[in-house]
């Protein structure tokens, strides 16, 4: 245990996990509040197609997956205006997975770079990647700060917000872009398949146990941080994958949150 910070890869992992947990906790809070968790889940899978596309044309997978998730996020919010929202998300998800398969079909070399993203690799984070994640995180959090007031209103009371002159559709699209960039970061830590755990579990737990916006948001961020840090330590001690611990601790936190909520209502 004593030597955990002696390793550069562990220091990088902690730095990256801290950065991503703050962004995921904050943005995840709004995602759950808006009932758009399925969109978040879909965008992470869309990211995989983006990464394969990027590998195919020879650019960085992170760039490809960010571009793809952003485009899909805008697509979902535009289509969602016309179609039923779940249908819009499902359409964008399956379309992009289809493209991902096509990209792999055209890719005649070994696609290990892309398949590696399915599970993420928090132990393989370079100092450069930490800086990139920090930059992305600052941008998303700044954007969230800018839109959070009308976004909160539009999330809680969309009809009233629209009547009061809030640009609801534009906000929804902007928020999806913010979510897309956050997901692109989270994929580096937990991988495409498990992004849900880092973005949704802390936020859903926070919404269960708090009654005010500010405390809820703070709880979500702190919980995401606690889960990420504890998972790294547990992975170090047990030698099991970090993403296993993130999903498990997220599930435990949510379970306890539901329980606490029940107890409070019974009293």
């Amino acid at each position: 245990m004593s030597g955990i910070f002696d390793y550069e890869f562990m220091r990088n992992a902690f730095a990256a996990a801290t950065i991503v947990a703050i962004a995921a906790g904050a943005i995840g809070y709004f995602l759950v509040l808006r009932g758009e968790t399925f969109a978040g889940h879909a965008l992470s899978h869309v990211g995989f197609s983006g990464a394969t596309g990027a590998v195919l044309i020879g650019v960085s997978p992170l760039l490809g997956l960010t571009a793809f998730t952003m485009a899909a996020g805008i697509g979902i919010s535009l289509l969602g205006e016309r179609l039923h929202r779940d249908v819009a998300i499902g359409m964008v998800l399956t379309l992009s997975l289809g493209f991902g398969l096509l990209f792999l079909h055209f890719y005649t070399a070994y696609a290990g770079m892309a398949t590696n993203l399915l599970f993420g690799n928090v132990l393989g984070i370079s100092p450069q990647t930490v800086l990139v994640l920090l930059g992305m995180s600052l941008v998303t959090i700044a954007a969230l700060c800018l839109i959070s007031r009308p976004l909160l209103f539009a999330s809680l009371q969309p009809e009233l917000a629209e009547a009061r002159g809030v640009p609801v559709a534009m906000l929804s699209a902007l928020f999806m872009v913010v979510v897309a960039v956050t997901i692109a970061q989270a994929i580096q830590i937990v991988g495409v398949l498990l992004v849900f755990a880092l973005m949704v579990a802390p936020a859903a737990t926070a919404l269960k146990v708090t009654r005010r916006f500010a405390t809820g948001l703070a709880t979500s961020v702190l919980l995401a941080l606690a889960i990420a840090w504890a998972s790294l330590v547990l992975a170090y001690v047990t030698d099991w994958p970090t993403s296993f611990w993130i999903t498990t601790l997220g599930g435990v936190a949510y379970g306890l949150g539901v329980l606490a909520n029940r107890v409070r209502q019974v009293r």
Partner: protein
Amino acid sequence: MRSRLKSLVITGALVATQSSSGAAWAAGPIHVIAAENFYGDLATQIGGKHIAVTSILANPNDDPHLFESSPSTARAIAGAQVIIYNGVDYDPWMDKLLSASHSADRTTIVAGDLIGAKSGDNPHLWYNPKTLPAVAAALAAELEKRDPANAADYKANLGKFDTAFAALMTEVDAVKAKYAGTEVTATEPVFGYMATAMGFKMLNYDFQVAMMNDTEPSPSEVAGFENSLKDGTVKILFYNDQVTDDTTTRLLGLAKASHVTVIGVTETEPKGKTIETWFAGQIADVQKALAASH
């Protein structure tokens, strides 16, 4: 689906003394990490008792494409002095783990770089006759530099390996002389370089790439593959035992029904074998199969 690296063994010394000062290492053995176990086997043959070798991918039952590194792997890499890995995107996690742990006192030997393979080439380089001798020479040179006192041992071991490997290649040349142009196929391009060295004509390459990348082969690729088995065009099916699904299992059945010889290949060295016995066994299988069908 996920690989668990239970077979990974790290000595206590490796974890405890991961200091980067060169002096601390001088006393103990040189620590070598091999991403794949055949490179680990090679390192053991060259370094003998003067080095401690850890192989990361060592279980023939795992799918090496789906691999998430564990903290102990990352720790072992952080403390190693010599790292051997395949490169050409076969093991991109190794690039990532290395970038996450900088070390001044570390040498990396990348097989792909040694033989000039590029990203996008068939990554199963260990079957390329040039690869293992090149890795062996590079490793021997590195060990001689780090441990001049035992340079003679390293030289002798390198000579031994080269002789044994040359004998294997003589057999390969014999196959080529007799059976060049024979049409063969495979579920994945694992054996590709060796098949080329044997002068075979490898059919259904696009299908193999699709399987390698966990994507879906096109209908014409599957149909072409099945026809080549059914009409007796191909004499051997090289079958990757580590990456199988319904499609490959079906093809396996079809090959057996069409009396096409199936030779299993793996992306890790099987337990209890050395490079020499592993390769020799496969060359013998090929010779037996072709002798029967000609």
